[in-house]
């Protein structure tokens, strides 16, 4: 099961490496060719050729562009094409990534040649192409499998994030957007935030509420979902598929429609207020300007309505996987239903759903939609460009999108990102499912 992963330092490889290893160091794939591994050698060479073509074609230019961010402003009226700083920044980052990838390939190629050499020294022979291929389906199955996902995540997740981080060090935003040229400004944005006195109170208030929101709504959704799944799992419940179908209805309606629907229901002219006034009461401003805690409570409820079904679904799947022999043993030993739940089901479910809890927590922490749809468009006293139900992500949106301060938004999100990711890493690495992965095997 355990894949070999002993690192060799480049120096050691150069010292111990034979002719072929050194050849590989000089030209990717050459060592493999000399070992007679034609297929693999040619593959490495092909990668190198592609990379060379890319760098000659545009890679070098992109790399230079990353530093200059453009020199010629565009002017459509005079027919001047000009440079687009934002594209240059992104393509520059892509070129860096390509260079890094090439470096990785290169080092993999050297290590591969070195391993082949070691194998020959032990009296083996260089692996044939088919053997390498087989290893990819067996011993190195994980490499085969993870290649595509990692590539995709790198391009569509990591690259945009690196891009945003880079933006935090530029003056992009406000009036400086293409065709205007963007420039690197170093730590100016960070200094600006730190010296603004109105930021800290808003930041503190929103962060506090955001943490409360994330913890409470995660707990609420999780236990409601789990409870529902357990309830449906009881022996006395017949027609499980039927009962489960109702929460599935909620799941079937897209989130934005749900949110708009609820917003309307809780509005002054909505059906709920219609009933209240119909019974002679006064209309309640569920989501209006004074409705701080009512609006927050509605946020919790609506979020639960949206999230509970999927957790229920998941918990159902996981409960199906319980080890029933344990439960039977417990029953024979005279444990009652609650004891069985407390000592067998709960630890099991908690273990296998810790990741869910974490991803739920993250999802809720960054839950943009709820308050954007339910109670957007308000700035409340005591908050800088935010309302008292806004989460950090909504505030960020107000700053960077509504008000156009893109580099400032990127800077703040970088700060928030650092805080929250450290926090969640801390929790995560202390969680049982991370530390004791094999307990339940």
């Amino acid at each position: 099961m355990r894949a070999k992963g002993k690192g060799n330092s480049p120096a050691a490889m150069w010292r111990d490496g034979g002719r072929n290893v050194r050849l590989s160091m000089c030209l990717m794939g050459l060592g493999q060719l000399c070992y007679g591994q034609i297929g693999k050698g040619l593959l490495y060479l092909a990668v190198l050729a592609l990379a060379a073509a890319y760098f000659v074609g545009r890679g070098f230019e992109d790399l230079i562009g990353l530093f200059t961010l453009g020199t010629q402003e565009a002017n459509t009226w005079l027919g001047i094409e000009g440079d687009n700083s934002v594209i240059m920044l992104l393509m520059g980052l892509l070129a860096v990534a390509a260079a890094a990838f090439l470096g990785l390939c290169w080092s993999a190629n050297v290590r591969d040649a070195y391993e082949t050499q070691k194998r020959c020294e032990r009296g083996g022979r260089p692996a044939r192409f088919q053997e390498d291929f087989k290893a990819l389906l067996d011993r190195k199955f994980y490499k085969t499998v993870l290649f595509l996902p990692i590539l995709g995540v790198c391009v569509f997740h990591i690259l945009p994030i690196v891009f945003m981080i880079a933006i935090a060090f530029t003056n992009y935003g406000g009036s400086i957007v293409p065709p205007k040229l963007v420039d690197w400004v170093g730590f100016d944005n960070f200094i600006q935030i730190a010296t603004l006195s109105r930021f800290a109170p808003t930041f503190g208030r929103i962060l506090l509420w955001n943490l409360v929101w994330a913890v409470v709504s995660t707990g609420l959704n999780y236990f409601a979902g789990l409870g529902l799944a357990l309830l449906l799992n009881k022996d006395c419940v017949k027609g499980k598929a039927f009962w489960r179908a109702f929460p599935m209805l909620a799941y079937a309606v897209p989130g934005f429609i749900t949110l708009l629907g609820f917003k309307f229901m809780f509005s002054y002219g909505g059906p709920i207020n219609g009933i209240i006034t119909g019974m002679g009461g006064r209309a309640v401003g569920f989501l209006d300007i004074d409705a701080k805690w009512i609006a927050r409570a509605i946020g919790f409820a609506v979020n639960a309505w949206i999230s509970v079904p999927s957790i229920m679904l998941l918990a159902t799947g996981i409960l199906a996987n319980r080890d029933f022999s344990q439960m039977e043993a417990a029953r024979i030993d005279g444990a009652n239903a609650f004891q069985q739940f407390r000592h067998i089901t709960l630890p099991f479910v908690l273990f296998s759903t810790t990741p869910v809890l974490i991803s739920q927590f993250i999802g809720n922490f960054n839950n943009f939609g709820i308050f954007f749809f339910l109670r957007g468009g308000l700035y409340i006293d005591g908050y800088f460009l935010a309302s008292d139900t806004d989460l950090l992500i909504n505030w960020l949106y107000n700053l960077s999108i509504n008000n156009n301060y893109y580099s400032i938004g990127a800077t703040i999100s970088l700060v928030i990102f650092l805080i929250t990711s450290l926090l969640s890493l801390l929790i995560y690495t202390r969680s049982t499912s991370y530390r004791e992965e094999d307990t339940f095997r």
Partner: protein
Amino acid sequence: MKNRKVAKAIDAVLTHLVLIAVCFVFLFPCLWLILASFSKSGSIYSFEGFFPSAYSLDTFRTLFTDTEMYNYPRWFGNTLFIAGMSCLIGSLLVILTAYTMSRFQFRGKKFLMKTTLVLGMFPSFMGMIAVYIIMTQFGLINRMCGLILIYSAGAPMGYLTQKGFFDTISASIDEAARMDGATNFQIFFKINLPLSMPIIVYTAISSFTFPWSDFILPKLLLKEKDLYTVAVGLMSLGDTEFARFAAGSVFIGVPIVILYFALSRFFVSGMAAGAVKG
């Protein structure tokens, strides 16, 4: 003995009472939406209390026949294609990723796990500009395959849940198979995959529903009206088209409900238990 029977009966009654309450909570807003879609007048305000004052089937008829401005059947087809393909590719990638992360120990695994965790903390809309520029550079604007690419590529980020599931499948079967000389590839496809139906169903449904109801990415990448997805199309409806909006929203839920009923048998408990013992 009699006491236990009574307790059991009370338990069953209570259970069902709670279930009925839960079902009511989930059903009611949906019911409201469904009834609204049958509202005769297009407006949300010609309601008496919760329900429309007059009913008619016209909305559904116009939804599918009056396609001059709002081509719902077309949107529906587009969405089905995008969500279907993303679901296929995305589920495969997630399951594979989760399985690998659960079963293999390799250098950099903990790093990968931490990285994916941390990446989720970044506000995604901040990266939209970058995604848009990448897509323009690849010439993937106004192309459905561009969307499928992004959805599928993003799917493995959510592997944690599935990994949690695989962690609970006992590794003892794997060991037994390995003794018999099966490769990891075979162990995965022949042994673990059939055991994982509940999580596969969960994955499939969730990776179908996200593209199915997302409107930010399609709005960003599909400019032509002919390429609209249902979510984008519904958002572009005129002010008084409420009934059409409701009808469109109701209809958008149909495939998911069908998907659920078609796959619900896989949730039946006890399947895996039998497999481990047998």
